[in-house]
């Protein structure tokens, strides 16, 4: 049974460690397009897959969030990756399976997956 006591335990575990991870400007931002076109094309499972994989690998330096219509509806689901100090990478026609590869190759190992990007 999920209880608020369990959430309290999470708070106690995390308290004090949150500050050590640095503020959001150091973090890698993963942004999933969530307008109607994105949702219809399957963005929600991509968001779920990315979030769970990032959590599974304990990637404290990554935040996964959403944006609205990026204007490239025919390429949805879209995922943009912003690594501080580097150019934005836009992944197109994403799937939960591709998301796992992006986490491993790009987020963990620093190598963008060129075949998933726009123009390929």
């Amino acid at each position, binding site marked *: 049974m999920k209880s608020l006591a369990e*959430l309290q335990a999470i708070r106690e575990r995390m308290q004090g460690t*949150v500050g050590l991870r640095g503020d959001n400007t150091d973090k890698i931002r993963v942004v999933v397009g969530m*307008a109607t076109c994105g949702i*219809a094309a399957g963005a*929600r499972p991509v968001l779920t897959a990315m*979030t769970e994989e990032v*959590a599974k690998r304990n990637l404290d330096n990554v*935040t996964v969030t*959403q944006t609205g219509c990026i204007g490239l*509806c025919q390429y949805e689901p879209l995922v943009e990756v912003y690594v501080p100090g580097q150019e934005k990478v836009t992944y197109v026609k994403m799937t939960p399976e591709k998301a796992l590869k992006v986490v491993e190759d790009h987020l963990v190992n620093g190598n963008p997956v060129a075949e998933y990007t726009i123009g390929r």
Partner: protein
Amino acid sequence: MLCHKLMTTGGHVLQEISLNILDIAENGVKAGASVVEIAVDEQPQKDLLTVTIKDNGCGMDAEKLQQVTDPFFTSRTTRKVGLGVPFIKMAAEMTGGRFSIESTVGVGTTVTAQFGYSHIDRMPLGNLVDTVTALVQCNPHMDFLYTHIRGDQVFVMDTKEFRAVLGDEISLAEPEVVQYIRAFLAEGEQSVI
């Protein structure tokens, strides 16, 4: 062009009510709401399924309110179509149901879609756990109140309660917290099936 395809296929690509809910709730986020309330009320014995999405964002004036159900009206600049509201309206009306949208500038907007529960064209509710989790994790600065009623069974998730436990320093987007919320929702959904 996907948007064009979406229109000509009559919105069938958003095949779960939970995806429509996600889509409409995003409008509330865009409107700068601090709270979005989502209610799913299943009353099979009355043959009704009612979905309500209410936000306290910037709201719309009478002119915009009239235009919002038109697929060629949108406030965004990246595309000339806004399909979310027209889709859910059509989805409800296709099942012999009703749709309404109310809004007041500076107060907020409420979308109500009522479906014929047993109608052959009534889309499945789909994955509400994923929808609500996505909304919370992507908008940790906002509060979401989610209510799922089925008959006389009630399940409620209120992020204000989570926030009260976590305090200001721990974001609702923290992976451990998101996992907790997802599990909380999964359990709750099971309890009203």
